[in-house]
């Protein structure tokens, strides 16, 4: 107990002495993070849906089932159409690793299993982000992913919980 108290006392002194320095540091780090996230190469991917999709958000486990092609309908029972970029596209790699926390080779094997065992269908593969935006905007029930700066009012962002 005494030792514990001792550590608390020390940490209080540290906070008092270096508090302003720590605060400055935190602000700078936050600024850095904001700048990095707006940098086009590292821009985060957002899940976009056709505006016909009524549900505002989706659980991560559900999102994996959707892009794993195991879930076929939205919660309002309208059919889902999944659009993805080619496996070797860096945006696809970033999406599967950062958003789904899966490797592209895992997704590909899951699709192959479904397609060649008669238990599911493959996602629609598009060749560019522009095509992704067009297709998702034009297909009811469509879902895909886009860089933040490419999202316009023909699309809606699906919030991942």
């Amino acid at each position, binding site marked *: 107990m005494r030792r514990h108290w001792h550590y608390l006392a020390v940490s209080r002194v540290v906070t008092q002495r270096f508090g302003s320095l720590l605060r400055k540091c935190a602000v700078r780090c936050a600024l850095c993070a904001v700048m990095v996230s707006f940098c086009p190469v590292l821009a985060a991917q957002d899940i976009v849906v056709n505006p016909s999709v009524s549900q505002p958000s989706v659980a991560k486990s559900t999102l994996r089932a959707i892009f794993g092609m*195991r879930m076929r309908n939205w919660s309002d029972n309208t059919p889902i159409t999944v659009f993805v970029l080619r496996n070797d596209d860096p945006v696809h790699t970033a999406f599967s690793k950062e958003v789904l926390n899966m490797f592209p080779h895992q997704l590909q094997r*899951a699709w192959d299993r479904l397609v060649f065992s008669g238990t599911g269908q493959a996602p629609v593969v598009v060749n560019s982000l522009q095509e992704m935006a067009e297709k998702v905007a034009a297909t009811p029930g469509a879902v895909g992913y886009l860089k933040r700066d490419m999202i316009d009012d023909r699309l809606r962002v699906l919030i991942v919980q």
Partner: protein
Amino acid sequence: MIDYASSLFSKGGRAPSRGVACALLFCVGFAPTLVVAIDPAVQFHGFFTQGYSYTSDNSFFGSAAAEGSFDYTEVGVNASARPNKYLLATGQILYREAGAADDRVDLDYALLDYRGHSTEFVDAGVRLGRIKNPLGLYNDTRDVAVSRPSVILPQSIYFDRTRDLALSGDGIGFYGERRGDRSVLTVEFNVVKPRVDTDNLEPILLGAQRVGRFEDEPSALVRAILNTAEERLRLALSVAAVNLRYEAGPNDVSDSGDVLFSPRILSIQYNAERWILTSEYARREFEFDDIAYIPFDTRTGESFYLQAQYKLADCCWILGRRDVLYQDIDDKSGEKFEALTGGARPAHTQFAKDWTVSLRWQPGRNWLVSAEHHWVQGTAWLPIEDNPDPAQTVEDWRMFLMLVSVWF
């Protein structure tokens, strides 16, 4: 309808199969243009695989000792459609030539999938028709090169000898999936009539061609797969009870009787960014009831393999595998069996231990080249059609296999 379709394919299959294969290839080439024309909910996919085999001794996929063979071809085309929000209809036609063992066009699967229950975290449904048998990690797509980790699957579990039984069955299948934050559980339960090729089964189960024939009986298969949420770890347990009935013919040396085949497979796989580690362990129980002239009533086989895949680059994977099969856990050396058969079937027909090193190169998005070398001791999974006289087989042998595959 399914029975009719399959009998149509298998009866007409033998002679004109080359022609049909060409027709399938034609479809493979033109299907993508069709896809554009029809609804996006309708999909066509297919594959073409050509293999090459070279064996130091024994015969595999048509190779003679120290003589290569191209008698290994797999062609498949499938279609799938979603006529409404609850239904998925799928079907696949498969042509396969693998040495003397197989040379025909078959209806691989054709089913209606009704997804009756679908919420954010639970899906459940029922499949009706010819359904792929859920066994282990690879059985569902065993004839599709792109979904195999190596040129051939680990033969201890995915051997070709009782291939028809393993492929698919006609009946009903229930499935459900429960998604949690940390894991996903999928359960499949099928009640089907297995596909029985009596000419293929008699030499394996009865030791020789007999006058009678094997009939299919209702059989059950269950598979449960537990995945961690990101599918890093996959665990699966498959259990099946495959029932067969032998109906003796006139003046048959065997009596009529039942055969129960119950394989149990435990599977585990770990996926990393560059590594995939896979292992499966299987026990195969055979029970023979009343069929005379079989040297045993029950028999339990054991199989397991350990496999490591490493991604060298985006295009290339390397694989190493140790694969072991025992026909009878009470006679792993096969010596008892050799004595029982009076030396007609050597001890080494009762086991197979295989070291495999395999390379897989995917130069483009839709094609791959794969090559591998096997060092095998024992002949337990050698196809009987290619090696009709077990006494002529060699215990220690090597094999080089290669394939080129395209798909869409």
